[in-house]
């Protein structure tokens, strides 16, 4: 009995509830004879494509700025990177790498200034971040219209200036990671490249956490007064955290898009931070403590829930029920996590 209690404590109620919910959905799926291999392939792909966006939450939390609700800042940088590589008619891995190489410096600059701003509004990072994200997306709508891209792939089919709402990546970087070393086992398509790339990013963030810079950044995030007394420049560490988070956001959207097959511009990134925030919280992170394992577990549970609930609920209930359920779960989890003791001590 004691052991069970301990296990429950270790795993945590949110994960048990979501996991239980997922299990019930899976049983329903089996009963309704929805093809399982297709579902599992779907889960793996969505897991890989969203993973890095969720991973982007990690440096921000570690540096003490909380959940990065301004993820769209990184995302628009990533989109610009991808657009430029398409403009130059790059495709395949060359296109992917160039996109990322262009996106990283952009995201660094944006993250730097955003970090400076956050240092002036300590304690309200998440509220302000949300609106910074919204504003950036809206501001970029103007940019998408005015940007001097010429490639017919990118601009409206009728010609003139301005980018399309969705840009197909079929002829450029679409599915390059998904199809890399992909294989089929028992009807399940494994997106090997995608999963490897996500694992690589996790590894890099994990290693960074073990370097001197990483340790100090985490100390600054864990206790600002302690860090100051230890001679750590807390503001600088926060900026580093925000930059890393923004860069990961940029890389994340490129990986997401190549797997999705389209670049989504204009208002698409508006709420893109929410699923990432929800996933990392489901995984067990709080607004001041996070581990890589939280990212992996959270992304898996959250995406699996979406993938399985869609067909099941569509069969059970007519219409758009799955979307409604998804929104309730996603926002419910965010509320749950934010109302937990914030910045507290575990005494």
């Amino acid at each position, binding site marked *: 009995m004691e052991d069970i209690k301990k296990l429950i404590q270790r795993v945590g109620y949110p994960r048990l509830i979501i996991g239980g919910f997922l299990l019930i959905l899976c049983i329903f799926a089996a009963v309704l004879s929805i093809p399982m291999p297709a579902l599992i392939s779907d889960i793996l792909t969505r897991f890989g494509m969203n993973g890095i966006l969720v991973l982007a939450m990690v440096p921000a939390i570690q540096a003490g700025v909380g959940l990065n609700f301004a993820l769209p800042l990184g995302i628009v940088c990533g989109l610009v990177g991808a657009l430029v590589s398409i403009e130059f008619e790059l495709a395949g891995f060359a296109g992917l790498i160039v996109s990322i190489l262009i996106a990283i410096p952009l995201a660094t600059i944006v993250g730097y200034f955003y970090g400076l701003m956050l240092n002036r509004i300590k304690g309200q990072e998440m509220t302000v971040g949300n609106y910074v994200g919204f504003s950036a997306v809206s501001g970029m709508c103007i940019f998408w219209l005015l940007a001097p891209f010429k490639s017919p792939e990118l601009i409206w089919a009728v010609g003139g200036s301005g980018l399309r709402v969705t840009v197909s990546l079929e002829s450029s970087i679409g599915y390059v990671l998904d199809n890399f070393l992909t294989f089929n086992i028992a009807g399940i398509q494994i997106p090997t490249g995608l999963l490897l790339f996500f694992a690589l990013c996790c590894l890099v963030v994990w290693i960074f956490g073990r370097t001197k810079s990483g340790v100090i950044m985490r100390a600054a995030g*864990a206790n600002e007064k302690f860090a100051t007394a230890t001679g*750590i420049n807390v503001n600088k560490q926060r900026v580093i955290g925000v930059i890393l988070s923004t860069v990961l956001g940029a890389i994340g959207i490129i990986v997401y898009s190549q797997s999705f097959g389209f670049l989504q511009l204009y208002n698409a990134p508006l709420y893109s931070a929410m699923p990432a925030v929800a996933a990392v919280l489901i995984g067990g992170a709080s607004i001041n403590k996070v581990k890589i394992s939280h990212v992996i577990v959270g992304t898996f549970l959250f995406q699996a829930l979406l993938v399985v609930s869609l067909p099941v609920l569509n069969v059970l209930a007519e219409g758009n029920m799955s979307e409604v359920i998804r929104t309730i779960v996603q926002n419910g989890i965010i509320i749950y996590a934010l109302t937990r003791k914030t910045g507290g001590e575990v005494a």
Partner: protein
Amino acid sequence: MTTEYLLQIKNIVKDYSGNRVLKGVNINIKPGEIHGLVGENGAGKSTLMNILFGMPVIHNTGGYEGDIIIDGKVANPKTPREAMDLGIGMVHQEFMLIPGFTVTENIKLNREITKSNVISRVLGPKLETLDFKSMRKDSREALDKLGMDLDEREIVEGLPVGFMQFIEIAREIDKDNLKLLVFDEPTAVLAESEADTFLKVVKKLSDLGIAILFISHRLDEIIEVTDNITVLRDGEVVSYLKTKEANVNQIAELMVGRKLDNVNTIKKAREIENKDDYILELKNVSVDMPGERVKGLNLKVRRGEILGIGGLGGQGKIGIANGIMGLYKTTGEIIKDGKKLPLNQPKEVLDAGIAFVTEDRRGVGLLLENSIEENIAISALQIKDRFIKKLAGMNIMAKKEIREYALKMIEELDIRCTGPRQLTGQLSGGNQQKVCIARALTLEPDIIMVSEPTRGIDVGAKKIVLDLLKKLNEELGMTVIITSSELAELRSISDRIAIIFEGKLEGILEPDASDVDFGLMMAGEYGKGEVS
């Protein structure tokens, strides 16, 4: 049953989780009496006042034994509201006034006089109109009683502090049933002239038949204004005096007392070889630390000594070490080994070989959600690049090295834990303190500054911590600056003790100096005594 006493405090005993802070306190106060209550920090004054006011903190920690008797009836208030209904009033150290309201509104807050109107007749008394005219009249009367020439329609914001204090008093005396008024350090925030007026007002109040319980660290004031004095020490009433028969020296001695037990023996004076070899000099240092301001301090620290810094709470002793570290805004000059230290830059100070163990263990001293080993290693990692190995051009934390070092420290300092991976938030106070000291030692400093090292830790751990500091000093020649509210502790380990009063150095004493001298210095009376 009737008695001549208005308030009787009978045999009050109070434990805070096994730690007995009041051990059978008795105090009797007659109507119209001004009764002084003095004692060092931690003597139990605030706990006693909390009991008198039925503060929730008392009842949340298991209540108390004994009785509060008012007018011969057992009262034992359980909430501040009950205490107020019994006629007990309190003037707080920090003002509880709403700045944007007028004087009248503040005085009458939550006791407004109202008239009924059409709406209130329908929707209830909450919506009655305020009767400003009679409210002003009442406020005027209260202010007049205090001899205050202040327009009752004025907004409180921007008034001098002295006035705010009087408005608080006016609010209390405006309550019709007021019988006993408690002043907790009332003159601490007042300028001298304001304090004089204030003391006159206190006398006036007692003429009105209100009993007054007067808590103050300023002994001259106590002598001047009170009728009787109770001296508290370590939760016991050590003396009850008639003010006429008391003098400042006597009270000072009673307050400090000599607390000899196996932990606290007074240290023998020790020969320091080079008396003029100063490792650290402070010149006109001011530190803007709220509640513990340092205002132009001059102090020299000898190489290889243990310097104690003492003084009463709020006088600025805590601010000194925090100022040297640069954690609060500091001005003046700090010179270490002949070189000026940059101000307000903690990293430079750490680089210069000064380590600091903070008084705020849980807030500043530890990463509570990190392991013991990380807590011990992080300062040295940041400042000295210790515990780092190169791996493919990256500075990676050397986990193995840290683990070995942490195990060594755990053994040496006898940190009781389940292992180096345990989170520091789960440790007891004494063991947390040892982790803090271990971290400071890892920096291999020349000077270690320790603030309130034994606050909130048990007697056994206290001895270990103090012995450790002594050992560091004797064996490694480290200069130790220890700041503490417990004088007995300072006297047991320091070579010299600097007493801080009102943000300045009042004087330096040998540990075996007399209790009178310590008492006088802590009350800021030392210099005055010499003059007269």
